[in-house]
Each structure stands twice: as structure tokens, then as C-alpha cells.
């Protein structure tokens, strides 16, 4: 920390970032970034055990064992072996995209309940293009479909932003409306204009030149020439869209933390009035943010269509798909950070996958996953941890550095009352009137020093 002293007689910089402060700040970040979601998850899993135990049969021990067994299969089904993991990653990919969609909107304090609709819009436009231009070569059609799907999502999300910016229509209402509109439009398309010949309520498969390669196959074809190859690569079904999802996470991280767009979005979200003061157009930002949110979701839909069997759109698929709602849990659990969204998507996607094995082997319905998900949402919404955290921090460190610690715990603090450097400073205001002040009082004319000046003098004197 190179401090250049502008004024030669300036005192020790008050903004001295001491080691312990930095540590506390870091602790706070990690604590709230990891602690809250973890606690939420643990609470939800415990509640899930209770649910299983209530509905299972036998003695209390039997019931508990049943619950543990179910969780065991849930985990094995999700991450137990490479094949299961690759199935899970197939679920994770769209969750990352839609989770990002929710998170981007939330940075501007917009609740994007419409990720599913934007996801659907992307899928549908990509499908239309894929089917109508099925004879085009892959090098042209693949990028075209991806771009078109992303744009369709962006438009579907951008509408929400426009309605909000122009007419003040609440995004929660408009996203829900737009979801159902696109669900029905999709059903109309697959049962009408796009219906596959001889099939009910589904489209034909996308042309084979647009199918995205599996990661394992791609590996064998490239790195596999130098490194050990994967045998039976076909059983690892995750395709390269997972890499796109990882790239999307990086893009999101960069946008939000390293660019003026991310900065301005945050200002718009946290304090629209400050945005107006700063000259940031709230309306423009809202439209942009929603379009970007839709773009990510649309991309997710498109890549799933192109990456996974059966490479087609099926009737009623979107209205029964919970990806868009799961994404809200993913984003909240991930506290809107890129790494958090990745972990959240991994968890939710894994549970979705593991749920079927759990139902099969442990006879516990896979819908338990929804219950756990709901409980995670509850515990995040309630934020038990800050309360506990504050209590702990207060108890253990209040005596030493009350103001800073409380500030780190999220409290509202008057740091003026307790400057952290200069031990004598806090006593200042309780000292008897300094001589200069008495003099000033006497004639009512003299210039009185501020506490800051007094401190300067003291420190200069000591130095």
C-alpha cells in the first residue's frame, strides 16, 4: 500500500488498513459468502431427514437409517461415479445459465422469475432456425442457432425491462405473464407448424450437424492424442455446453466486478436515486440488465437443445420444467457470485439427478429434492446466520474493538466515536475543555480547533 503524501505536514493517514482489520474484512466476506448458504443447506438437509423419518415406517432407528440411506443414494446418484457426475453436469449447465440470468437481474434489484420463459424463447427460436435451415452446413448453422437463441432470450427478457422502464410494470408480474405466453406459444408450435410428421406434440430432431459434441468425445479427439484416452466415451453424456456455462460464469464475474456496467448496475439496484444523481440512466440500465439476463437464459435453452438427446422440443416441456425456479434458489444460494452460482448449480443439478436413484433404491420419492430446495430458500430468506453471527461476534470481541467488529457484522456504527488508531483519540471528547477553547469562549472570537486539528498537533508533537 504505497501512500503518497500530498501535504508535507499531513498526519499519519487515518485510513490505515491494519492487518487485523483486513483479516476481519476477509473473515466477514468468507463468513457471509460461505457461512450463510452452508447453514441454509444444513438446515434444509436436516429438515429433509425429518420429512423422510415422518413418512418412513418402523422404529425411530429404522427411520433414521432410512433417511441416511436415502441421502446416501442421493449423493451417489449425483456424484458417485463419473457417469453419474456427467449426468449431473447435464443438469448443472442450464442451471448455471438461468442462475446467472436471475443473478444479473438481482444485481439491479429486479426479480427475474422469467428465466424459464427466456430459456424457452431461446430454445424455440433456435429450434425454428435449426429445422427451417436443416440443410445448411454446421459451421454456419451452429453459430446462427446459438446467436438466434441468445437474442430470443434477450428480447424476451428485454420486454420485461422495457415494460418496467417505460410503464413501471412490476417485473414479477410481467415475467410470470411472459412465461405463460411463451409456454403456450411453444405448445402451439410443437403441435402445429413445427410438429414432426407422424409424431404427437414434438418437433423433429435438430439436424445432426448442429449436435454439440460430448466432452469426453472431444477430449479423445484432441488431448486424447497425447494423454490417456477415455474408454467408452459415449456413456459420459455431458457435452461442451458445460464449457460454455463455465465461460459464461467468467463473463459474468468480469462484467459485474470489473466494468462500469457492473458498477452502474449495482448503483441502480442499491440506490436508484444515487444513480440519478450520478447520471446513470436507470431505465436504460434496467432494460439492458433484463436483456442480458434473458440472453444468458436463452443461451442456456439453446445449448441444451443442441447438446442433449433427443435434440428436439417436446410439448408442455417448459411449463413442467422447474429450471427457471430452481435458478432462483441457485442464485440466492450462490449469493449472486460466479463461484457461488457454480456451486449452487452443482448442488441443485446433482440433487435432481440423485433424486431418481434415491427413489429407485431407497423408495423415497425424488420430489424430496423440491422440499429441500424450498427449505434452502426459506433459510436463505430468513438469514439465520447474520443473527447468530452478530451475537457471537458481539460476545467475543465487543470488549476489544466494538465499533469495527460490529461494523463487520453488518451493524450500523459510528466510527467517529472510536477511531482505530491513536489510543488517546476516543477520550478526546470527555476531556475537560482545552485551554484554547476556554480562551475562545472568553472573547467569543478566537478560532477554535477541530478535534482533527487537535489530533494532528498531538501526533505531530509525539513524532
Amino acid at each position: 500500500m504505497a501512500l503518497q503524501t500530498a501535504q508535507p505536514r499531513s498526519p499519519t493517514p487515518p485510513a490505515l488498513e491494519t492487518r487485523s482489520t483486513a483479516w476481519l474484512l476477509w473473515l466477514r466476506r468468507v463468513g457471509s459468502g460461505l457461512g450463510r448458504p452452508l447453514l441454509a443447506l444444513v438446515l434444509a438437509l436436516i429438515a429433509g431427514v425429518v420429512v423422510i423419518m415422518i413418512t418412513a415406517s418402523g422404529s425411530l432407528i429404522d427411520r433414521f437409517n432410512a433417511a441416511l440411506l436415502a441421502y446416501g443414494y442421493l449423493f451417489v446418484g449425483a456424484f458417485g461415479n463419473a457417469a453419474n457426475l456427467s449426468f449431473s453436469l447435464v443438469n448443472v449447465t442450464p442451471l448455471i445459465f438461468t442462475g446467472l440470468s436471475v443473478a444479473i437481474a438481482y444485481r439491479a434489484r429486479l426479480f427475474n422469475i422469467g428465466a424459464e420463459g427466456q430459456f424457452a424463447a431461446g430454445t424455440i427460436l433456435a429450434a425454428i432456425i435449426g429445422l427451417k435451415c436443416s440443410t445448411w452446413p454446421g459451421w454456419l448453422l451452429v453459430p446462427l442457432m446459438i446467436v438466434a437463441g441468445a437474442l430470443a432470450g434477450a428480447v424476451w427478457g428485454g420486454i420485461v425491462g422495457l415494460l418496467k422502464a417505460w410503464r413501471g410494470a412490476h417485473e414479477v408480474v410481467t415475467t410470470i405473464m411472459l412465461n405463460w405466453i411463451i409456454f403456450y406459444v411453444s405448445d402451439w408450435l410443437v403441435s402445429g407448424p413445427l410438429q414432426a410428421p407422424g409424431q404427437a406434440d414434438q418437433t423433429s430432431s435438430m439436424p445432426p450437424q448442429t449436435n454439440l459434441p460430448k466432452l469426453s468425445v472431444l477430449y479423445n479427439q484432441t488431448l486424447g492424442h497425447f494423454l490417456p484416452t477415455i474408454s467408452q466415451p459415449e456413456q459420459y453424456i455431458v457435452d461442451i455446453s458445460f464449457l460454455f456455462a463455465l465461460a459464461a460464469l467468467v463473463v459474468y464475474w468480469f462484467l459485474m466486478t470489473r466494468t462500469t456496467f457492473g458498477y452502474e448496475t449495482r448503483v441502480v439496484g442499491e440506490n436508484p436515486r444515487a444513480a440519478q444523481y450520478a447520471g446513470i440512466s436507470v431505465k436504460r440500465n434496467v432494460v439492458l440488465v433484463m436483456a442480458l439476463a434473458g440472453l444468458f437464459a436463452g443461451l442456456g435453452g439453446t445449448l441444451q437443445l443442441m447438446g442433449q438427446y433427443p435434440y428436439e422440443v417436446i410439448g408442455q416441456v417448459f411449463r413442467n420444467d422447474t429450471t427457471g425456479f430452481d435458478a432462483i434458489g441457485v442464485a440466492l444460494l450462490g449469493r449472486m457470485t460466479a463461484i457461488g452460482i457454480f456451486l449452487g448449480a452443482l448442488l441443485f443439478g446433482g440433487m435432481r439427478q440423485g433424486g431418481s436413484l434415491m427413489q429407485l433404491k431407497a423408495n423415497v420419492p425424488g420430489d424430496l429434492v423440491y422440499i429441500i430446495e424450498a427449505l434452502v430458500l426459506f433459510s436463505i430468506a430468513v438469514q439465520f446466520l447474520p443473527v447468530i453471527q452478530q451475537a457471537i461476534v458481539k460476545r467475543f470481541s465487543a470488549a476489544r474493538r466494538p465499533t469495527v467488529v460490529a461494523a463487520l457484522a453488518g451493524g450500523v456504527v459510528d466510527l467517529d466515536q472510536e477511531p482505530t488508531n491513536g489510543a488517546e483519540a476516543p477520550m478526546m471528547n470527555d476531556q475537560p475543555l482545552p485551554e484554547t477553547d476556554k480562551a475562545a469562549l472568553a472573547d467569543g472570537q478566537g478560532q477554535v480547533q477541530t478535534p482533527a486539528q487537535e489530533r494532528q498537533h498531538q501526533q505531530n508533537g509525539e513524532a
Partner: protein
Amino acid sequence: MHEQEKAPLAQAASPDLAASPYAVEMRDICKAWPGVVANDHVNLRVQRGEIHALVGENGAGKTTLMNILYGLVRPDSGEIYVNGERVHISGPRDAIRLHIGMVHQHFMLIPPLTVAENIVLGQEPGGPLAVYDRRRARELVLQLSARYGLPIDPDARIEKLSVGLQQRVEILKALYRAADILILDEPTGVLTPQETYELFDVLRALSRQGKTVIFITHKLREVLDLTDRVTVLRRGRNVGELVTRETNQAEIARLMVGREVLLRVEKRPARPGPVVLRVENLHASSDRGLEALQGVSFEVHAGEILGIAGVEGNGQSELVEVLSGMRRATAGRVTVTHASGEQIGKTYDITSMNAREVRLVGVAHIPEDRRGTGLVLSDTIENNAILGRERWPRFAWARFILRLGEIAHWARRLVREFDVRTPSTRLPVRALSGGNQQKIIVAREFAADPQLLIAAQPTRGVDIGAIEFIHRRLVEQRDAGKAILLVSAELDEIRSLSDRIAVMYEGRIVDIVTPEASEEELGLLMTGGRPSGASREEQAQATGDSGA
């Protein structure tokens, strides 16, 4: 009906209360918020029938103490006695039952409801399950207003009333609940001098009728004018209990701040340069669609401070917003001319620019509502240090990619040069005191080396130390040749800093006077009178109008 039902109750109870002369006694009240001790063993004794002032600086703990008395805040420890009896107040309902009423600083009125609905709310005739009896409610309000001489239209919607009338509704609301002890939290801050005098008359009348009044303020003249006794708080502690007759302004001030208040700022005479800001016939609408600015014209020169005085709500906020690009003008013209010494540079028409463009032209703006407008409280000091300038090449490549190192460096420089007390620039601004928050804004706006500085209520709600600091910096900037437009509701601040004073009234500049103008003269101008530069007849007429 409640009023008449409950009043005898209180009277019947009074004889055996003679044992204690105190209507309210609070002993050893402690209340700590996370990180801040608001009340530290505070004692308060209020005699029956007196008007008792509770004074202290902002943040001294006055409001917290009264919120405890009204049951809005639970104390950590301490005892409360009302008419000599130990009481536990766990909510406003308990307070109302004890005949305590409170007029809050931010009015507790529901804008879309009518006056009568607001007054009877919670104690409607007929009880909660009955049909709302509009006629009865009306009648009760009219009776009440006749009895205490506080005329009001019971059917008016709150949102249509002036601030003074809203305050009257608040007082009536307390009286409707048969309050014998009336707490008023900073009631004069939003009133014109005339409305203030009227309020004082009302309070004196209430006191004569046996009501006890607790009057929170930090304006010492009001304390001397109105009250019988004074309790002074400083930083959450008692520092004095005085009889008003036996004390003076200086003593109270010394107790309040621990030393003499410095209101006179040391400064040399201004050496005004060329005109920097020129405002011509400016019109603009308020949020409610009313015409808030009705043809404002004035000029600010380089090297001078032009103060805008006026009772709040006469268009000052809208003026500042238009000049800083936050609000569109409906007519008129605003130009900013760059000047360096006597050299005149380019002139920019900023009338229809947005805040970002205005800032690029060289206008800095300290907004009146620092927490609501000037800062993003949840964000770090670093990020707040570039608010509004985040796309400047200094802080962003290609206006898009943030230069984080440069921003951190910049923030540390501001914190150092403006003596912001914080352990780290990565701390959320929320964690700082009001004074330090304001210093961050001042630092940000000064450090950009502006041509014109608009400072709206720059010292509102900050401690004395920060006030002096900010005042000195303003004068420094003036002496460095900047044009400064100062808008403040504190007349003392305007008079001690300004080189010229423009007085605003109902969306117009009624006059521009020198700081030597007397307070009476300014007061008259602020209420629409026109004592100087006008003939005696006009003057008389103007005053007559304002009184009507």
C-alpha cells in the same frame, strides 16, 4: 367521544398523584444499538404542566430517549415513572393508555387518508369491527379542533396539506387520544417563522391547560423563547438540567457541544471573478407536477459563495436538481462558463444535460440527502469515491473496464486529505458516522477540481467538528476561484458563509441581499415580504399578503 370519556379519568386520578411533582421521570435509561450507545444512564425529570426542552446535537440520543418513552424502542435498562408510578411501556398502545402523545419528526400520517381518518385511526368511534362512521369522526375532529383552537378541514387528504397543517393534524391526533404529556420531536425544522410562532402559541396554551410538553430541539433560541426547563444531552449522557430563566444560550451551547460553537467562519472578503453560472428565467415542475420554479434568474461569479436562503420547500431542492442535471427544466436557460482567474473560457449550455454531462462540464454537487442520494450505503468507500465519475478515463479504460488499482489509490487519497475516520477504504459507507459519510461526498466533489460547486445542506445532521471542517473547505474553494452555490435551511450557515444571499420564496428569488442584512429582514423575505429595494407601500402590501 374518547376525548371526553378519558379526560375525567385523568383528572380523577390526579389528586393522589400530587405526591410526585413529575409528570415523567426517566431514571438510568440505557440503550445501545450495535456499535453505538444511544442512551447511557440518562435521567429526565419533567414537571407537570411545564414546557420542557430536551436539547442536544444530532445523535445525542434525544429521539431515542423519547422513542423509549413512547414505547417505540425498548430500553436495555432503566426505569420510567409517569405521575409518580413505575410503568412499563412496551408499545405505543401502552404510552397512549398513559396519556402520552408524540408528534414525530417525520410525521406519522398516512398520505392518502383524510384528516379525520388519520386522527381517529386506531380509536375509531364504534370499535374495530364497526362500520366506519364518517360523520361521527368528522364531528369529533371538529369538536376537538374548536376546543383547542386548531382549525382544520376534517375531509382534506393529508397529501394535499401543507407541512404546518400536517403538524397540526399530528397534535390533534395526540389530543384525540387524550394526551396529557405531549412530546414534540424537532417540530420547527419544517416550519416558516410564522408557523413556528403559531405553534409556540398553541403549545403555551396547551401548557396553560395543564398539559405537559416535552420539546426536542437543537435550536437554542427556541429553548429560551418557549420552555420552562431544559435537559441537555451530549453523546447519550446527561450533561445538564437547567431552569430556562436562569441560563443563557452560551451556557446551553457549551453543555451541548462541550465547547463554544463556532458559527462565524474566518474568511477574507471575496474577490469575485467572471460569471460562471448564469440562470435565466428558469421554470421546473416538482414531483407532484406543481410549478416549483417560476422564473428563477441569478448569477454566480468565480470566487464567490452565493447562498440561497429560504424555508424548505420553496423550490430550492428543485433548483439544485435542475442545475445538477437530475431534473428537467420546463423553460429557461442555464449556462456554465469556464473561468481561470480573469480569463474567460468556453460557455456550455447545461439546461438539458443529464447529471453525467453536467459533471463533465465541471459542476460538482453535494446533494441535500446524503444517505438517500449522494451515496450507495451498502457499497464500499472506494466505489463511492467514484460515484458519477466511474466512466472517467482516470477510472476506466474505454469507459468500460474499471481501473481498480487507480480507484483504490484515489479513495485512499480522498480519505487522507479529508480526514475521513475509517479503518479501511473497503468498508461499506454504511459503517461510517454521518459526518464521515458527508466528508466522503465533499471529498469526492471537491477533488474533481470543479468550476462550479453546488452544495445543498452540506452540514445537515453532521457533528460540529465536521461542520467546521466543511465550512473551512468551502471557503478555501471559494478563495481558489471556484463559484459556489450554497443552499441551506440554516440561516446562520447561509449568513456566515455567503458573500451574497438570494432568498427564495414560492419558486422565485424574491431578492438578493448582502450577508449584513438583518435576520428580521431575511425572515421577512423568506415569507414573501419585500423590505429592501421596494417602496413602503409595496412592502406593506407584501407583508399583508403573506399574513393573509
